[in-house]
């Protein structure tokens, strides 16, 4: 076998701070060979990105490699000066970052930026460089590459930007490509296409790729080997098939258990979060780093550091000094062989949150939305606009949405960004003014904005937000922020407010010490819990959750989902749950609405949405979801381009510009005629019907193959 392209041995990286060195990464050992992709996964703060920056020696002023060795194409990169490194490395390491928009220079057009990559490193004529760039753009499947070269980064879509960044990284034909969360900022449909591209490029260019992601599904799709990082250490390293089928480290097993699998719902299984949180690198446990959170920990684990070794070898043998053999399975746990993940019993049994209508009782409808539209006027901010003279464009963010929601149920809303999901819930809660249509909550009309609504109505509708860092006001303590809705809505007499806050904190599994803490002293998951406590403080009947778990790590996400389910069950709250993760929605919700470009394309009971008959858009979404299991086969359907601008939506069926099944409809019916709703299943309950907004007859949609099998 060839020598590895890059060989990392016992790498340790630390950051100098005023309180001494903080060891961010320790004992990381791996090799990557030509044409191979190694995935690094783990929760935030586990040192994945630090490893990547360490490889290119981009650690910032206070970071340094404090131990170990990095051998790139046979030569060590550690301990050399910047100039030497540049020569050694030349242009043979490429890097792709998370956010394509910030990786591109907004002041230069795409062509200039790409050509610069070539002209800086080698003598090459402008024409030749341009030619090469054009070829590379074609190679990354960029539609109309000549035009793209002339455009500026803000004029192309996010998916196209990331393609440009990848093309730039590949221009010098690097032998190692480092990708740090390259698809995290993208929608699932675009993510799927970019992942396909990465897999193709690896094959064609024979590049070694280090692929960093927090998303196990993404890693499962593109990587053949996967390394799991925990608290700055590599805890498990194996072939992807092996690690997903047979995880040996308790942390890897915990991650798998915390992840909702597509097709699993709350009635049939529970999600088990990993207790505790990732230790800060400045306060590591003395023994095994995972010991405080491990269900299998023994006295020995508390005191003994664990070595990274191949499975079925004595625990004294440190694999860091051994050559990394492709196909080996290494783990940092002395009990790796004995632990049987199937025999795992949760420390506390979690209740299953079954569907509440087992007795055939039809719950009353609490929310009735009928042909709701929310249009914005854009470009009306100039002084001329103040007098109604400005040039304005109407953005149809939500356009004719109807649904009903029974008490105590959850409606999941999915769709790409820009499909109007957030605007829909903001209109319902009164943060946006509705343009036309009706929305009725019990006996109240939701016509007015939140400011003008009656306090008794305001109290019944509350919201949980996406970004844990923005959901709490940084200026006030946790207690004060939960107090406010209690006082405002007069939930309890004012002398009991403090006790009620503490009760709510307990409800979200935080103890009363949190009362006086400030938001910046909390972790993301804790902030989200406080946000949930605040939303539920007024005991609302309808809670709108806008991507409440998207910004959280897998293990924390599981805990927050369980919490929401528990409170919902206790209080009988009705919920609308926006998410882009189809597995989370499937797990959490009773009903699902799929939105595209301001309209609902398909709506129905959760289990009905995930198998045929389904709307071609739903089918495309399902085909694109990254599944954390390399053995699952997905149908290969990829959507081109980006979601159309809601200011100028396509005629007829809005999905016709990207629809992979347009061939099933003869003529240009999709372009000219707005589809009608087809009802697939009608039960006694009107709420339970499954409806599809498509021209293709239901019988034909039923014949579509399963997107996942």
């Amino acid at each position, binding site marked *: 076998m060839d020598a590895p392209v890059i060989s990392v041995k016992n790498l340790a990286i630390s950051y100098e701070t005023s309180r001494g060195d903080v060891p961010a990464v320790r004992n990381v050992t791996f090799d990557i060979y030509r044409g191979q992709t190694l995935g690094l996964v783990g929760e935030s703060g586990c040192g994945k990105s630090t490893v990547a920056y360490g490889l290119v020696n981009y650690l910032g002023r206070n970071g340094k490699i404090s131990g170990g060795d990095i051998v790139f194409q046979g030569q060590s990169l550690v301990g050399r000066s910047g100039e030497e490194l540049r020569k050694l490395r030349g242009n043979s390491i490429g890097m792709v970052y998370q956010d394509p928009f910030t990786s591109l220079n907004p002041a230069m057009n795409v062509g200039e930026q790409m050509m610069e990559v070539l002209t800086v490193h080698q003598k090459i004529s402008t024409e030749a460089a341009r030619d090469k760039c054009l070829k590379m753009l074609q190679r990354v499947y960029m539609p109309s590459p000549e035009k793209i070269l002339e455009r500026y980064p803000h004029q192309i879509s996010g998916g196209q930007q990331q393609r440009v960044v990848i093309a730039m990284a590949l221009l010098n034909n690097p032998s190692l490509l480092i990708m740090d969360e390259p698809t995290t900022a993208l929608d699932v449909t675009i993510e799927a296409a970019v992942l396909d591209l990465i897999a193709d490029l690896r094959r064609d260019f024979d590049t070694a790729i280090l692929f960093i992601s927090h998303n196990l599904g993404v890693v499962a799709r593109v990587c053949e080997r996967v390394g799991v990082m925990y608290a700055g250490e590599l805890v498990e390293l194996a072939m992807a098939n092996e690690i997903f089928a047979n995880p040996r480290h308790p942390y890897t097993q915990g991650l798998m258990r915390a992840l909702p699998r597509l097709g699993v719902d709350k009635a049939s299984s529970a999600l088990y979060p990993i207790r505790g949180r990732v230790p800060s690198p400045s306060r590591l446990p003395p023994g095994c780093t995972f010991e405080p959170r491990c269900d299998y920990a023994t006295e020995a684990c508390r005191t003994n550091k664990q070595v990274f070794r191949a499975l079925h070898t004595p625990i004294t043998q440190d694999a860091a000094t051994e050559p990394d053999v492709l196909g080996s399975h290494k783990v940092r746990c002395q009990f790796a062989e004995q632990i049987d993940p199937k025999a795992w019993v949760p420390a506390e049994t979690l209740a299953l949150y079954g569907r509440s209508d087992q007795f055939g009782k039809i719950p009353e409808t609490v929310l009735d939305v009928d042909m709701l539209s929310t249009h914005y006027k854009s470009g*009306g*901010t*100039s*002084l001329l*606009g*103040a007098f109604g003279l400005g040039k304005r464009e109407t953005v149809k963010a939500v356009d004719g949405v109807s649904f009903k929601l029974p008490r105590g149920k959850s409606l999941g809303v999915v769709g790409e960004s820009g499909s109007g999901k957030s605007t829909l819930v*903001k209109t319902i*809660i*009164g*943060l946006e003014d509705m343009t036309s249509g009706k929305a009725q909550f019990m006996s109240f009309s939701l016509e007015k904005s*939140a*400011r003008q*609504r009656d*306090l008794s109505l*305001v109290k019944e*509708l*509350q*919201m949980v*937000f*996406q*970004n844990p860092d*923005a*959901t*709490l*006001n*940084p*200026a*006030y*303590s946790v207690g004060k*922020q939960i107090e*406010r*809705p209690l006082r*405002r*809505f007069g939930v309890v007499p004012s*002398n009991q407010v*403090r006790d009620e806050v503490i009760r709510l904190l307990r409800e979200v599994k935080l103890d009363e010490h949190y*009362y*006086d803490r400030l938001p910046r002293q909390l972790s993301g998951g804790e902030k989200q819990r406080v*946000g949930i406590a*605040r*939303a539920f403080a*007024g005991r609302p009947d309808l809670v709108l959750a806008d991507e409440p778990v998207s910004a959280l790590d897998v293990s924390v996400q599981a805990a927050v989902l369980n919490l929401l389910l528990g409170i919902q069950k206790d209080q009988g709250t009705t919920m609308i749950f926006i998410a882009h993760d189809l597995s989370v929605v499937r797990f959490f919700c009773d009903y699902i609405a799929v939105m595209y470009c301001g309209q609902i394309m398909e709506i129905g009971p959760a289990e009905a949405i995930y198998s045929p008959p389904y709307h071609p858009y739903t089918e495309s979404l399902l085909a694109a979801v990254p599944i954390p299991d390399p053995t699952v086969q997905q149908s290969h359907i990829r959507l081109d381009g980006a979601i159309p601008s809601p200011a100028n939506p396509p005629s007829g069926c809005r999905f016709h510009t990207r629809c992979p099944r347009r061939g099933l409809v003869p003529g240009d019916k999709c372009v000219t005629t707005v589809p009608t709703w087809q009802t697939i299943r009608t039960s006694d309950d009107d709420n339970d019907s499954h409806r599809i907004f498509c021209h293709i007859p239901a019988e034909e949609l039923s014949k579509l193959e399963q997107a996942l099998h």
Partner: protein
Amino acid sequence: MAAINLKDNNALRPSAFARFREAISPLTQSKTAMLGFIMVMFWVIIGLFADDILFRPACWSEDSECKATPWLARYEAQQSFRGQILKDPTAEHWLGTDRQGRDIWARVAHGTRIVLALAPISVIVALLVGGSLGLIAGYFGKWVDEIIMRILDAMIGIPSILMYLVILAALGPSYLTIVLAVTVTGAPGIAKLVRSLTLDIKTRDYIAAAQTRGESPWYIMFVEILPNARGPIMIDAMLRMGYAVFAMGTLGFLGLGLPPPSPDWGSIVNAGRTHLLGGHPWGALAGSLSTATLVLGLNLMADGLQEQLNKYR
């Protein structure tokens, strides 16, 4: 009820103390800010203890017959020493004497009070006016924003010296006029700063959370938004305090400030100016250096705090 209140207070007490320590921590952590703080505190102490009048409440009314006992100032501001005209510094008169035989140090020390009272007051008034306008413009947006900001733009367009002249000419020199002049020139800048901070903060989810509770716009502006803008506002206020000290010096120097025999620093410089070439720079020097050190101190404090604030981000 009483028992519960007691419990509340007990719970709040440590956190209030912690909050105070935290509030001053940026000062103690930055050497720059600490140096500035020491320079400003020097003048604050001189101002407080120039004489004993601030510590005798009986003397505070205008018509009281109290006679102040000089402390740090050593003499009274208007006290003339016979035969001690335009003297160089001596042990008796630390900074020498002026044309009328008055002790320059005593005048500087008494002048500190005027400067240190008027500068913060005028900045606070400017903050109240400019901050409110900025909050309103930023939060409501649309035409409210347009109208407020265009009017403030027009005010920024007028040179500040011209603005001072117009206001002083119209209202005549007095404490109130000076405060008004500094407010009118300072408020538009503060409004712009607060507006930009508001535009940023109002997009945060906690503002949406307040809106979904049906809170009034005033509650959201002053309770939810303003506390989160306080860092940059405080730094700006410190810089503006420096400008205000300068502005008052300028007015005094131009003879437009408080009427003689006011010992404000600008007037001291103005009085000493004529003797600069006559080999007696002490009056002009003392007034200028006092202004310079105070402004420098305020600027250093602002710089240090800014540095600390950036560190948190």
